[in-house]
């Protein structure tokens, strides 16, 4: 097929394309899915996908690709869907994105490709995420991954962390002929994709399939290695013979508010709450041994308004919570969570307590949480983040009865790698300093990207950093110049 727009495979006139409504994503009914962990979105059928793909306007200068952190060639893969070549479309995405089945599910497309889609000026944007997911799943069902055949370069790269950015680096570099070994601290691979994002948003089977594909391509994985503790960066380079190292250790230590009662039993960090469920399968206790506090029939709240907060509270609802609240100190407009997730959560029956913040947790006198004392807020002047600052309303405090409270208010940098790697520069918050373009750190041969550089962000931004790092590592390994 021709890559030029003049020979578009889409024969529909532009005006007609605008008339096709955005094809809705089939989803499990809200009152069923809020009781199970099966995926909410069910995926397009081939017919829906082809119908949706026809809406693409074939822009001469596609802004969708420009706004994709990994630069997926949207127009080209959508055109292949129009032509019915779904495997070709998948291969086209894979040129830039090693985890299409993941990003097709969890990427905030409204902030990237779809946010800049020309269609959205008049009608709803093209369902790029839904289409990406469709072809990735189609490829998986067909089981016809292309294993690239490349000449080995003899260079070895260590990747620290098997989350989205580490996997992107590994996937890109193995296709350049370098040997890649990924080190993971936990007993299971996938990082936040496995311990953080719940099954109903990203089935673990999808990640296992992506990992199998990477193994087929030759990527080696080693679990139970905490770089900085089990082995240092210097030892990897000087004793184990790695020519370059990529640090993608991800999200850090959970923050707490520092209000009274945060140590009561029943108060969790979102990281712990989600890890118990997703990684340790505590909801299957006693079949699995890791326990968690009983949620069935209990009142549960999450503090925070990001995707992690919604993942946690929607999990609590699925585990039988009677009331499930989101307590967020600003208003809807400032919520950092993806629009689709907020919409899904509301449909499922999550109670959003906006412009509200806890000021203290209360207990039964034996150390178990019974309520959160909260205050209502109003929005004042914009703060450093550009969002309007929440200001407490005097005398508005009230007690919200709760058995479980989940803190999802952000993370701070994990210091393990930084504190054991001499000469590795960090910023004043403790995150690793890395160049925005090359992802180079202050240590020759050492690259870094993702949350450990930027602070908590999204899967796709971490993958974007991985992409840039892989390019830059390849350059470093082939030229030898730093």
């Amino acid at each position, binding site marked *: 097929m021709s890559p030029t727009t003049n020979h578009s495979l889409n024969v529909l006139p532009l005006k007609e394309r605008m008339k096709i409504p955005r094809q809705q994503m089939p989803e499990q009914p809200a009152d069923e899915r809020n009781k199970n962990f099966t995926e909410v979105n069910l995926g397009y059928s081939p017919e829906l996908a082809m119908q949706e793909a026809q809406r693409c306007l074939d822009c001469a200068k596609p802004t969708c690709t420009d706004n994709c952190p990994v630069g997926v060639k949207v127009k080209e893969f959508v055109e292949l869907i129009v032509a019915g070549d779904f495997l070709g479309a998948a291969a086209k995405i894979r040129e830039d994105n090693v985890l299409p089945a993941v990003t097709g599910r969890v990427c905030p497309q409204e902030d990237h490709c779809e946010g800049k889609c020309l269609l959205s000026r008049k009608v709803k944007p093209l369902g790029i995420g839904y289409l990406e997911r469709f072809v990735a799943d189609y490829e998986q069902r067909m089981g016809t991954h292309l294993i690239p055949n490349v000449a080995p370069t003899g260079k070895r790269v260590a990747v620290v962390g098997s989350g989205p950015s580490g996997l992107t680096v590994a996937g890109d570099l193995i296709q350049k002929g370098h040997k890649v070994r990924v080190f993971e601290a936990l007993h299971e691979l996938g990082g936040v994709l496995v311990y953080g994002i719940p099954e109903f948003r990203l089935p673990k089977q999808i990640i296992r399939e992506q990992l199998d594909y990477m193994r087929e391509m030759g990527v080696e994985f080693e679990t139970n*290695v905490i770089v900085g*503790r089990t*082995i240092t960066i210097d030892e990897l380079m000087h004793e184990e013979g790695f020519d370059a190292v990529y640090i993608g250790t991800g999200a850090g230590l959970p923050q707490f508010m520092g209000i009274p009662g945060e140590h009561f039993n029943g108060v969790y960090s979102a990281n712990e709450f989600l890890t118990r469920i997703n990684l340790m399968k505590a909801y299957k206790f006693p079949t699995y041994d890791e*326990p968690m506090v009983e949620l069935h029939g209990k009142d549960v709240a999450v503090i925070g308004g990001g995707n992690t907060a919604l993942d946690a509270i929607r999990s609590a609802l699925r585990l039988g919570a009677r009331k499930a609240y989101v307590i967020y100190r600003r208003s809807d407009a400032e919520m950092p969570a993806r629009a689709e997730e907020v919409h899904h959560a509301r449909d499922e029956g999550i109670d959003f307590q906006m412009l509200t913040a806890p000021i203290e947790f209360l207990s039964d006198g034996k150390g178990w949480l019974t309520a959160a004392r909260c205050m209502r807020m109003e929005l004042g002047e914009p703060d450093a983040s550009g969002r309007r600052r929440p200001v407490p309303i005097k005398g508005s405090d009230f007690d919200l009865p709760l058995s479980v409270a989940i803190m999802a208010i952000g993370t701070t940098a994990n210091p*393990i790698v930084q504190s054991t790697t001499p000469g590795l520069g960090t910023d004043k918050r403790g995150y690793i300093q890395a160049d925005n373009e090359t992802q180079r750190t202050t240590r020759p041969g050492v690259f870094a990207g993702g949350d450990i550089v930027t602070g908590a962000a999204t899967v796709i931004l971490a993958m974007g950093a991985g992409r840039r790092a892989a390019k830059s590592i390849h350059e470093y390994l082939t030229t030898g110049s730093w």
Partner: protein
Amino acid sequence: MFKIIHAEFIAPGIKRFVLDAPRIARKQKPGQFVILRVYEQGERIPVTIENSDPAHGTISIVVQSAGKTTQLLNSLNTGDNILDVVGPLGKPSEIEKVGTVVVVGGGVGTAMAYPSAAAFKRAGNRVISIIGARTRELVILERELREVSDAVMITTDDGSYADKGFVTDKLRQLIENGTRIDLVLAIGPIVMMRAIAELTRKENIRTVVSLNPIMIDGTGMCGGCRVPIDGKSEFACVDGPEFDAHKVNFEVLVQRNSMYRDAEQKSLAEYQRSTAKTAATQPALANEAEKSCAVAQRGNR
């Protein structure tokens, strides 16, 4: 998979394992721990490293049967495997020459105190070790501690061996005799560590305890092991596990460690039911005395 090179009971219900873990063996320092998961459905539990042998690539751990996971562990033998072992975790003990160090080990905590006692000795300190156990057969590592200590004092709760009483009695004796003590390291049940802390606080003796909260990842990611230290929340896995005993909020530690008591009992009961048939042909793992000592373990796992 981590192979068990050698496994033997060193006291009733207390088993020592030598594990093939070359990466961990190379890095381990006194005071550090590993997190392990026995099998696919298993939970992750922290266990202090007793010793390591970098030349042979092995580490040793000492485990007391308490909950399901530790019972399951202690049913494993030489040649078996442990699914996941990760470490070494936590900050190493601060070993320096301070003068006279009193190392207190309560129950299975003795095994965790031993490597630090040895390191303090190597650093040129006078080391006095105090071992406490409920009863004679649960006194462990006496010979090893004698090798690295200038003096060893032993108490048993029931007086069946050495002196009847508690480790705090011995420490009080030392203080009353005018022994100059520059540092106390206490590792054992929370009640013991709290009692030691109370005693030395009055005497203004620097005291370090090794805390045993519930953990999952051990890298600071989950925050489950948070403990108030001097009113500020710290993570035992990355900021500890050793802390200034006089700054630890023991009450919160006790409360948080009881968070899953019901679940732990349920888990244990189911495990014991499921193994009841085979148990008849094996020696009993835990008698009443051991169960009451089991609090020395990191959690009742």
